């Protein structure tokens, strides 16, 4: 079997940084192999993949001591735009890769850059679209695609180039579990049917032994361990955390016959009613388009119900009361970058304390305590944008916890994070609940829900279709974990 990639990295260093970002990596990838790279956030997975394309050196300015050979060619001698003849690369966020207005143009983008004829482009684009299950959508605007469709479009664009090597960086990071499993099935198909060499930074919660020939575990910029695919342990089935039943009957939040219609009459949610008691860990589940986001915005007071009402601690959420009520709630967003604005980690966390009547020393003590709790004590003077994605999510959690809220509403807080970071965020929420707080988790990760929540609300077609208590929902969540249930496209 011929060699697809020969990697010999003694060190990869970035200007201004003493420590090597990657070191001592020697690896030979044979043609037709399927390699999965795994490891905690910040372990160097994405950087290793960047190095394989040459981007880490030519685009990010890294200094490589060693060599990377792609199909017999030294990567340093290939200009970046020429790489796409040998290697197709896919990033995590589809929205940062789609550059065209229509689906057809996007799939053809790479081929058009390489100067293929229109006939050839049409033929290859159609084949790639059909492979990715997007046939018939050529004239759709890329902005109108769902998350899963957008991710498969990016994949189709890479497939259309027909490269012998595919390098994929957490391709399912932005997808729900069903979407993720669907995308991985496509990757397996292209690997098996066309003999393409695949190297991917794996998303968490997948059974890598199902498809990988080898699994490489990275830690601190180097390869820590290598497994044969079939020897790599399957992810554990989520086990519910021990739970002490809710003793109090105090209702902290109640949603009463709430409906919301957007401008133009588009339904956001319809006739939803439920109550949340103090000390509950409630999960709201449903595929994209089922009404989760609308319900979340209603609970946050960003939208006001067209019908019905929402009460927080007995007070009706109105435009006027929303500001005061939010002081009792901490919000944790899917994307921490939407809220980070300060120059230092410390200032970011301290922002929520600005309006509280506390002395400066007391504020500092609180900041230190919460940063220690989330494991960011060493970074308090660091610029938040220098932190890894997982660390930024921890920072957002710290900012949500600092003012001692009574409820935390978390919107997909573990999306795109690695196993360890997911656990840390979910443990923080569990600790918060154990301390008397109430957690409302919006998620489409059945693993997290099964392990941590004690009650699930299931939304579908903008309605609440089920309200499971502890013990009742194990089967439902387990089925979702296996990839059952409708996916987002069926819902849209």
């Amino acid at each position, binding site marked *: 079997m011929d060699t697809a990639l020969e990697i010999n990295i003694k060190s990869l260093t970035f200007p201004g940084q003493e420590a090597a970002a990657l070191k001592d990596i020697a690896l030979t990838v044979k043609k037709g192999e399927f390699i999965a790279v795994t490891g905690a956030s910040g372990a160097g997975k994405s950087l290793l993949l960047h190095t394989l394309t040459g981007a880490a050196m030519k685009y990010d300015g890294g200094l490589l001591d060693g060599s990377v050979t792609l199909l017999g060619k030294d990567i340093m001698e290939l200009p970046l*735009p020429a790489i796409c003849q040998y290697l197709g690369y896919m990033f995590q966020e589809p929205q940062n*890769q789609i*550059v065209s*207005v229509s689906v057809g143009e996007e799939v053809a983008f790479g081929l058009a850059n390489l100067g293929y004829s*229109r006939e050839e482009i049409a033929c290859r684009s159609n084949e790639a679209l059909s492979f990715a299950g997007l046939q018939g959508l050529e004239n759709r605007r890329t902005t109108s695609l769902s998350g899963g469709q957008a991710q498969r479009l990016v994949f189709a664009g890479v497939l259309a180039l027909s490269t012998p090597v595919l390098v994929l960086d957490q391709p399912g990071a932005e997808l729900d579990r069903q979407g993720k499993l669907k995308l991985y099935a496509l990757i397996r198909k292209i690997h098996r049917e066309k003999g393409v060499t695949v190297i991917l930074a794996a998303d968490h919660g997948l059974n890598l032994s199902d498809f990988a020939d080898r699994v490489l575990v990275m830690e601190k910029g180097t390869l820590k361990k290598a497994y044969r695919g079939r020897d790599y342990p399957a992810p554990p089935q989520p086990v519910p955390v021990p739970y002490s039943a809710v003793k109090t009957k105090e209702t902290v939040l109640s949603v009463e016959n709430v409906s919301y219609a957007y401008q133009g009459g588009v339904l956001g949610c319809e006739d939803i009613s439920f109550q949340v008691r103090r000390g509950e860990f409630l999960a709201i589940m449903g595929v994209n388009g089922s009404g989760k986001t609308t319900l979340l915005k209603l609970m*946050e007071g960003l939208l006001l119900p067209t019908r019905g009402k929402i009460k927080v601690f007995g007070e009706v959420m109105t435009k006027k009361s929303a*500001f005061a009520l*939010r002081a009792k709630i901490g919000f944790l967003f899917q994307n921490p970058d939407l*809220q980070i*604005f300060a120059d230092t980690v410390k200032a970011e966390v301290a922002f929520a304390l600005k309006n509280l009547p506390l002395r400066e020393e007391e504020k500092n003590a609180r900041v230190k305590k919460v940063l220690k709790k989330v494991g960011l004590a060493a970074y308090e003077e660091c610029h938040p944008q220098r932190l890894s994605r997982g660390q930024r999510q921890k920072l957002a959690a710290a900012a949500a916890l600092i003012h001692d809220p009574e409820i935390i509403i978390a919107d997909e807080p573990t999306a795109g994070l690695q196993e360890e970071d997911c656990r840390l965020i979910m443990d923080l929420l569990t600790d918060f609940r154990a301390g008397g707080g109430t957690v409302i988790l919006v998620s489409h990760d059945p693993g997290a829900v099964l392990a941590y929540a004690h009650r699930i609300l299931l939304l579908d077609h903008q309605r609440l279709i089920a309200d499971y208590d502890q013990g009742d929902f194990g089967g439902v969540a387990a089925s979702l974990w296996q990839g059952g249930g409708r996916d987002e496209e069926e819902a849209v």
Partner: protein
Amino acid sequence: MKRKRSDGLDPRLKLIWCLVLLFTALLSSSLRTQIIIIALVFFTDLFLTGSVKKYRILLLIFLIVASQLFLMQLLFNREGVVIWQWGIIEIYSGAMSAALLGVLRTVAISLSAIQMMTWTPSEDAVLMLIGYRVPYRYAMLITMAERFLPLLKEEYASISDSQAVRGVAATGLINRIKMLPLTVMPLIYRAIRRTSEIALSMELRGFGKSETRTFSKELCLTTTEIICCFLLLIAFIVLNFYFHI
């Protein structure tokens, strides 16, 4: 994507139409001509796209501009005779007509330019620029803008929401101004990160590899369109330099 009648026309014909209207509005000092140009924009838009709703958003902007122009003319125009005086403030008879002409001309020019932009799909605009020897790497920025500006707007709304639920007051003009750094900073960070990733993703798909690239279509002026272009140019010369409309 729904096709409109205007999509079928060559962008060069649209450009000539726009330039004829624009320069006529600049050269003419007649109120009637300015009104005709504005009417022409609306009429052609109604015929070719079936709607003029898109201009509704401009109404407020035009009202603000108009009020400023009127104020300036009333205060500083010295044409004609004094018709009203209060202390050192004098209003002359020529001020009203000059202000009206200024407003109508601004509206006519803006509408002509906006019509050209909304009529021309970004791909056509790119091809037209390439036809005028603009390298495709720069010409394609138009498509990028069409793709990413709405995304930026959406992101700004999400950031505002995120900050609002963190306790930043988002109602009232003063609060909104105060909140600006809190929403602009994340937007800038996101934009920098996004730009860098997009550029890399494009390069890794061969963007900039060659001097030329294949586009999904070619621009081709039909005989009717060529005749229309000539007629428009002749009409422009005759109306502006012979009849002095």
